[in-house]
């Protein structure tokens, strides 16, 4: 029988929520890594027992954790607890190490980005926002980090190497952080073309590689942002999240700072599909697992008021790929609700009917087992939720 495992990252630890295919009764485990900010956890599609987690702290920095048994036990890759050497000779503690490429061959030009005051500022690693395991190899995983860059590990997270062509493609020195920092938060792997990867950065924009990360190009044509000097600039757009249905890799949906966008040519061109949304500011966006034109967003009141509109927690669904949106409210609070839903805090399972999940800044994780028609809280009182990922098992 099918099962689902929901991986929840919060401000104060990680939680794992499991249920059978009915998604009615849930077991809750956690907190794992209690007290740490868990920005993201994600399982390998190639081996669901392999789960990667980003554990971070303003005090102690970045830790990468890995489980090989579906979350029962965890270790820092290359540094098993209680052991002083590794059989393969890997230097321990390297899994925590994210060092920007400064090599003469590829890294030398990439010295600074713009800071808030517009002056050049050196890249400084702060944390891993997003981990994206390979679709085919459990030991290969990508990390999106702040200050914005993408790293890759091919040894299960023991060592990380920057794909420096992203920062080095030419616009890097123009990138500038938003109020939340300059993070690479979205990584999408193309299931039909292993050399194609999409990423998004706040607040630089969206980028794509077609040669497995060697070279990258901005893909922001059609984005229009009033908060930058040139609203149609090549870079500088605050993309909040991008989602894609794996069955249709050329079609992307974007929640920008303001505006919901879509592209049908792999990001080369974007058109706005905000339509009748009550506000088109938001963070999270996702696509139905089986219906590539059915998409979900959670509108947030404004960039100055990061909570849901009118005190109502509403997921909006479009079955037409955007423009025509319907509020989904059954089971969700419709008064006095002022939570936020962050960019990585929405996910879908692949069961039939498709399950939709999201977590809030108030610590609730909601599940809809009927594609959004009705909702139930799995948990109500976790720490603020940073990320939600779902594994469909069996």
């Amino acid at each position, binding site marked *: 029988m099918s099962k689902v495992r929901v991986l929840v990252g919060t*401000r104060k630890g990680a939680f794992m929520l499991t249920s059978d295919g009915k998604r009615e009764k849930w077991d809750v485990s956690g907190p794992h890594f209690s*007290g*740490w900010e868990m920005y993201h956890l994600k399982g390998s599609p190639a081996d669901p027992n392999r789960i990667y987690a980003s554990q971070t*702290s*303003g*005090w*102690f*920095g*970045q*830790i990468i954790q890995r489980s090989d048994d579906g979350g029962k036990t965890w270790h*820092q890759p290359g*540094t098993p*607890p*209680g052991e*002083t050497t590794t059989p393969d000779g890997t*230097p*321990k*503690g*390297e899994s*925590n*190490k*994210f*060092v920007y490429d400064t090599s003469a061959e590829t890294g030398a030009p990439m010295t600074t980005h713009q800071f808030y005051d517009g002056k050049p500022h050196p890249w400084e690693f702060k944390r891993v926002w997003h981990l994206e395991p390979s679709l085919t190899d459990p030991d290969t995983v990508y990390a999106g980090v702040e200050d914005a860059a993408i790293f890759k590990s091919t040894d299960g997270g023991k060592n990380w190497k920057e794909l420096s062509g992203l920062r080095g493609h030419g616009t890097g020195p123009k990138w500038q952080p938003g109020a939340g920092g300059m993070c690479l938060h979205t990584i999408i792997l193309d299931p039909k073309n292993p050399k194609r990867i999409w990423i998004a950065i706040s607040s630089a924009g969206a980028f794509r590689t077609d040669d497995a990360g060697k070279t990258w190009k901005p893909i922001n044509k059609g984005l229009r942002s009033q908060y930058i000097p040139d609203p149609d600039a090549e870079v500088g757009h605050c993309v909040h999240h991008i989602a894609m249905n794996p069955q249709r890799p050329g079609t992307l949906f974007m929640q920008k700072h303001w505006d919901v966008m879509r592209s049908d040519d792999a990001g080369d061109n974007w058109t706005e599909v905000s339509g009748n949304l009550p506000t088109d500011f938001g963070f999270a966006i996702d696509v139905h697992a089986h219906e590539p034109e059915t998409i979900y967003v959670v509108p947030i009141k404004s960039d100055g008021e990061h909570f849901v509109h009118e005190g109502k927690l509403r997921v909006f669904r479009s079955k037409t790929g955007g423009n025509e949106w319907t509020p989904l409210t059954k089971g969700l609070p419709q008064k006095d609700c002022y939570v936020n839903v962050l960019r990585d805090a929405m996910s879908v399972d692949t069961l039939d009917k498709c399950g939709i999940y999201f977590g809030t800044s108030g610590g609730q994780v909601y599940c809809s087992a009927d594609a959004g028609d009705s909702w139930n809280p799995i948990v109500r009182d976790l720490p603020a939720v940073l990320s939600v990922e779902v594994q469909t098992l069996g």
Partner: protein
Amino acid sequence: MIRVILPTHLRNLAHVGSEVTLEVAGPVTQRSVLDALEGKYPMLRGTIRDHGTLQRRAFLRYFACEEDLSHEPPDEPLPEAVASGKEPFIVIGAIAGGKT
């Protein structure tokens, strides 16, 4: 024998109790103590000092003998009481102030 006290989160990462003991060859300094600590508990690399620069992470402090040694040069000898094991070298997180 050098005694080191770690904050709770780092104890959990290193799977140790409240105090660890280290053998330090040569002069007992911040650098030599932290080198020995990271050598024995490599999972702590990057959590106390930056991986690349080996600078103290901004929100951590080093205390010993009721003194804040955080701004002392890393190669300055630590107090004799630390070198002799009478007093511990303490790594402690800065006060959060309530925001997080």
